[in-house]
């Protein structure tokens, strides 16, 4: 019962795979950037905000962390549609991914922010720094440095999880694969190729996160020590 591999469909389908991969990159890079922004703001509100903002952020994080991404995405996609607003599958996908990434970023950045000692805040206060400047210049960068490995992993996971957006037919890598395998009946081969492309993307993302870390965390780059 020897399976005979047949990759001949690649000859004319390879551009479709690459286009799908490229859309995955576009969707996820946008979602990671915006999700990081949302999550960081929420983390600050969670740690330094008043009772109300803490509770709102807490509820947001709990809801997102305890529901499947697929369901979140359907709710965003069909929910927005039923409000009469027509959004493309890609935009809906990005919104859902941002909401999802934002919640996980909130939890990770919260741990980082909480690791910054009160004495750092006091020192900044005594120098006359505003709350905003203190958060931006004294808190966020070291907080991020401390949780950066967790943050990078989470974002790679998000890139992989973006495959569920194929369910609302965003034309990303997995969606493209679904189409090709139904055309060619070479399901096994098609998903092997998709897996290889996801692995390559993961490596590229990890590399880029490492690079970004080196640019952001100058002290660490120069001294090589943990904060």
């Amino acid at each position, binding site marked *: 019962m020897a399976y005979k591999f047949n990759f001949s469909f690649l000859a004319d389908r390879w551009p479709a795979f690459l286009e799908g991969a490229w859309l995955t990159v576009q969707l996820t890079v946008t979602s990671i950037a915006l999700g990081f922004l949302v999550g960081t703001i929420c983390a600050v509100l969670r740690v330094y905000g008043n009772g109300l903002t803490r509770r709102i952020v807490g509820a947001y994080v709990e809801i997102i962390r305890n529901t499947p991404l697929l369901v979140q995405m359907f709710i965003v996609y069909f929910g927005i549609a039923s409000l009469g607003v027509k959004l493309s599958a890609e935009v809906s996908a990005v919104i859902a991914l941002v909401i999802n990434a934002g919640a996980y970023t909130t939890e990770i950045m919260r741990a980082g922010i909480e690791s910054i000692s009160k*004495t*750092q805040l*006091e*020192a*900044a*206060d*005594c*120098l*006359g*720094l*505003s709350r905003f*400047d203190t958060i931006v*210049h*004294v808190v966020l*960068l*070291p907080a991020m*440095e401390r949780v950066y490995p967790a943050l990078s992993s989470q974002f790679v996971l998000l890139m992989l999880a973006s495959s569920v957006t194929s369910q609302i037919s965003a034309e990303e890598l997995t969606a493209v694969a679904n189409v090709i395998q139904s055309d060619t009946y070479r399901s096994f081969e098609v998903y092997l190729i998709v897996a290889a492309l996801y692995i390559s993307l993961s490596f590229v993302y990890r590399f880029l996160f490492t690079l970004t870390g080196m640019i952001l*965390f100058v*002290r660490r780059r*120069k*001294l090589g*020590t943990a*904060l």
Partner: protein
Amino acid sequence: MAFDANGAVLAEPQGDAVVKVRDVVKFFGQLKVLDGVSLDVKAGDMVAIIGRSGSGKSTLLRCMNGLEDIQEGKIVICGHEVGYGQSNRADLRRDVGMVFQSYNLFPHLTVQRNITLALTLVKKKSKAEAQRLAEQVLDQVGLADKMLSYPEQLSGGQQQRVAIARSLALSPQVMLFDEVTSALDPELTVEVLRVMEDLAKGGMTMILVTHEMAFAQRVANQVVFMHKGKVWEAGPTRELFSSPKTSEFAQFIGTGL
């Protein structure tokens, strides 16, 4: 300096006091940490606050700088009333500098950026001007060559001198020091004390909590002995040390009255 021991006011407050503390009461929960503290500090004074651990020295200093609220009494520092909420914060910060036992430098920033941060963000100095000021204050504390180092690359004594320089760069009227040498080895303590002595000679108004008795005796012109949340004994350094009035103070300085 006016002071009271067990509630008795022993001298009239000075009119030109830059720091006025009146009958301050401070609780942490049920614990009364400051129990009617009053003192005045004149411009150019160097006041050493001494006393046993837990007597309320740090709390008093923190109250003066608005880091803790008070429940009763009044604190006026450089014309700013502090102790109740956040009023006047920016003005207060412009006039009062504070240095902590644990240095509290920003570990992710170079020595230079530690110093220029507030200069550019708060005082709105240009980058060049801030840099020039950083050079000047670092030179003053003998660390001109450490401009681009990170805090972790410095010894404790050097870090503390940077912390002093950082505060100094904002040209405060009054500087508060809370046991700034307590975390340091004796040989590193010396270099920090030397910087503080230079500051005192330069006319800076300084209030310091310290365990360095010899230093306090030699450099401070006023001494405040705190005990159980009160100013137990206070006055000009020489007088105080040569003739302790209370057995607690005598015991503290080891003469055993």
